[in-house]
C-alpha cells in the first residue's frame, strides 16, 4: 500500500513526536504526516502505566523557550506536575575534599518575563505526554507507523520515494530525520558529519534525600568532567555526571552501596542522607555537527543534525529550536504554495539553524575543555571569569536568557 504524505518523520523519540505535533498544530487537520519508528506499538497514555517498573533515569533541562513550545502544543499541562522549576543555579569547581566549596557563580534563574529559565523534566513524563497528544491526532493529521524503519529513499525532482523495511513504498514531499546522532537517514543522504569524540562517558541516575533542594541546580566542575545535580519533584535529583571512560566503567561496575558512596562524595551532605531512587545508565559522550542540515527533500533535526556535550542539558532545547524553525519555514513556504520539501524552504531552515547550532556546539565544547582539567592557570582563569559574571547583573541576565533559549532569532512558536 503506497501513501502520499507532506512529511515522513524518521524517529519517534521526543524530537520526532514534537516535530509531528508542531506541524499538526500549525496546519490543523490540513496535513498528512507519518512518524516511522522501529520500536513496537508506541505506548499510549494508558499503556505506559504498565511500564512503570522500567524507569528511565534520564531527565531534560527544558528551557523557557522549549516550555513555551510545549505549552503552544497543549502538552505542557500533562508534564507540569512532573516538572521541577529551577529557581537557582550554582556553579562550582573546587576539589572534592575541600572543606568549603566556593561558589563561582550563582544566579536566580528567571527570565525577564518572570518565568523560570529552566524546568527539569523526566524523559518518561515528556514521552508519555507527547505519545498521548499524538494518539489524540491519530487518523487525522498524524499516522504512526511503529515497528518499522526507513530502509532507503530516493529524492526526486518533487519529493522522495521512501521504502520501509517491510518493503512498503510511500511518497513524501519531505523526509525529516529525527533518528538520532547515528542517523541512518543522514548517512543515506551522504551527509558527512564533523565528530569530536570525548574520552568521557556520561552516567545518569536518580537519588533521593531528606531535605528539600529548594529548586537549586548545581553544576560541579570536576577534573574528570562535570557533575550536575538537577532537581526533580519531591526530594529527588537527577544526577548526570561525566568521567574519564575508565573511571566511568569502574563506577558503573560498583554495587549499589559503593556506587552511592561515589555520588555522596561528589554531592556533599547538605541535603541529608542520600539513597538511590532509580536505575543507572551510562552512555559514551561525543559531539558532532552535520556538514549540512538539508539535502534534496530531507531536513535533519535534533541529534541527527548536531549533538552537543550534555554539560548544559541543552540537547533537546536545540532540537526544539530546530523544530520550531523548520515548522515556521514550512508554514511560510506553504503560504506561498510551496511544498514542504521545496528547496527554498530547506535552504532557509539551514541558514537559520546551522550557524546557531555551530555556535552552541563550540561553546559547550569550550566550556567542557576549560573545566575538565586541573591546571592551576586555567583554574584561576575560570575563577576570575565566572567571578566577573557573578558581579554583573547584565551578564547574568544574558546567561539566563541564553540558557532559556531566548537569545538569537527565536522562532515564533517559542517567543
Amino acid at each position, binding site marked *: 500500500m503506497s501513501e*502520499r504524505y507532506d512529511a515522513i518523520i524518521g524517529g519517534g523519540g521526543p524530537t520526532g513526536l514534537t516535530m509531528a505535533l508542531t506541524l499538526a498544530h500549525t496546519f490543523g487537520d490540513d496535513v498528512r504526516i507519518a512518524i516511522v519508528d522501529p520500536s513496537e506499538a508506541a505506548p499510549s497514555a494508558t499503556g505506559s502505566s504498565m511500564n512503570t517498573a522500567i524507569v528511565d533515569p534520564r531527565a531534560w533541562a527544558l528551557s523557557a523557550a522549549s516550555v513555551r513550545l510545549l505549552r503552544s502544543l497543549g502538552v505542557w499541562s500533562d508534564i507540569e506536575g512532573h516538572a521541577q522549576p529551577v529557581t537557582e543555579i550554582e556553579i562550582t569547581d573546587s576539589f572534592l575534599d575541600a572543606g568549603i566549596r566556593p561558589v563561582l557563580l550563582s544566579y536566580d534563574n528567571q527570565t525577564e518575563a518572570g518565568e523560570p529559565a529552566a524546568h527539569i523534566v523526566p524523559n518518561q513524563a515528556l514521552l508519555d505526554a507527547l505519545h498521548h497528544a499524538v494518539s489524540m491526532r491519530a487518523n487525522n493529521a498524524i499516522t504512526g507507523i511503529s515497528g518499522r524503519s526507513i530502509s532507503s529513499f530516493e529524492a526526486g525532482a*518533487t*519529493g522522495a520515494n521512501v521504502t520501509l523495511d517491510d518493503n512498503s513504498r510511500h511518497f513524501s514531499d519531505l523526509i525529516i530525520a529525527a533518528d538520532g546522532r547515528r542517523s541512518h537517514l543522514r548517512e543515506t543522504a551522504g551527509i558527512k558529519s564533523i565528530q569530536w569524540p570525548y574520552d568521557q562517558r556520561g552516567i545518569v541516575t536518580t537519588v533521593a534525600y531528606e531535605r528539600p533542594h529548594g529548586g537549586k541546580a548545581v553544576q560541579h566542575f570536576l577534573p574528570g568532567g562535570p557533575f550536575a545535580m538537577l532537581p526533580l519533584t519531591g526530594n529527588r535529583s537527577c544526577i548526570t555526571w561525566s568521567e574519564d571512560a575508565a573511571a566511568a566503567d569502574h563506577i558503573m561496575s560498583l554495587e549499589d552501596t559503593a556506587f552511592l558512596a561515589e555520588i555522596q562524595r561528589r554531592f556533599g551532605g547538605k541535603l541529608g542522607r542520600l539513597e538511590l531512587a532509580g536505575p543507572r545508565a551510562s552512555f559514551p559522550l561525543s559531539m558532532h555537527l552535520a556538514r549540512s542540515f538539508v539535502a534534496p527533500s530531507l531536513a535533519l533535526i535534533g541529534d541527527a543534525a548536531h549533538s552537543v556535550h550534555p554539560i548544559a542539558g541543552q540537547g533537546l532545547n536545540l532540537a526544539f529550536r530546530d523544530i520550531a524553525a523548520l515548522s515556521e519555514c514550512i508554514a511560510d*513556504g*506553504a*503560504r*506561498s*504554495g510551496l511544498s514542504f520539501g521545496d*528547496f527554498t524552504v530547506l535552504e*532557509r531552515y539551514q541558514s537559520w539553524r546551522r550557524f546557531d547550532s555551530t555556535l552552541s556546539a563550540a561553546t559547550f565544547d569550550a566550556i567542557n575543555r576549560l573545566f575538565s582539567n586541573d591546571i592551576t592557570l586555567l583554574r584561576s582563569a575560570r575563577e576570575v571569569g565566572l567571578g566577573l559574571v557573578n558581579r554583573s547583573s547584565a551578564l547574568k541576565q544574558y546567561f539566563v536568557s541564553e540558557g532559556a533559549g531566548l537569545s538569537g532569532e527565536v522562532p515564533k512558536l517559542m517567543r
Partner: protein
Amino acid sequence: MQTTEANLDPREVAQFAALSGKWWDANGPFRMLHRIGPARLQVIRDAATKHLALDDTGRQPFQNLRCLDVGCGGGLIAEPLARLGGTVTAIDPGKENIAAATIHAEQAGLTVDYRATTAELLAESGATYDLVACLEVIEHVPEPEAFVATLARLVRPGGMLVLSTLNRTPKSYALAIIGAEYVLGWLPRGTHDWTRFVTPDELQAHCTMAGLTSFASEGIVYDLIRDQWQRSTDTGVNYMASVVKPG
C-alpha cells in the same frame, strides 16, 4: 488593437526554450527565479484573497478559483498556484517549456492544464479567468501596451490581473543587468534588454488604456543580510502590480 498575431520575440522564445531542461534546477540558470518566487507568490496571494474576498486561513485559499499563468516557463508559478487550490491553466509559446512543465507537475502530483500557445490565441478563444498572472514577461515582448490589452481580455469582469516586471531606472541597469548578469552570474547574459524595461507609470498607463483599474504596485528587493527576496515599497528594480477589471 486586437490581433491574434503573437506579440512575442522569436529570439527570446528560443533563448528560454533552449534552457527548458533547467527550469527546476534550483541552482541552475533560473536560480534567481526560485529565490524570488515565494515573495511574488505572497503578493499574488494577498492581492487575490483581498480583492476576491477569499478565505485566507487554510492551505488552499484558491479553491474553485480559475487561474491563468501567462508565460509559465517550467511552471515555477503555476505549480504553487495549483498547490494553493487553484484550477490552473498555464501557457507558454515554447513547446519545450510546456513539455518540461507537464512532466514536473505530474511528478509533483499536481493538476495543471499546460498549453503551448500564446495569450493572443487564448484570448481569441474567448476564455476568461478569475485571476491572471503574468510574471517576468512584459519586459520581453515587443509591444507592451498591446500585450496588456490582450491580458485584460483574459480577465473575467470582476477578476484581477497580477504582473511582475523590471523598472527602467539607473538602479535597475546597475543591479539587474550589470549585477545579476555580469557580476553575480545569477542570470545568463543577455536575459534582459534594459531598454525594454517598463516603469510603473508606463505600466499603469497601459492598464488604464486596457480598461483596468485600481492599479497597485509593490517592490521586491533582495536583502543581502538574510540572503532573501522580500516585499518592499521600493519599486526601483523588481516590482509587481495588481489591477482589477471592473465587473
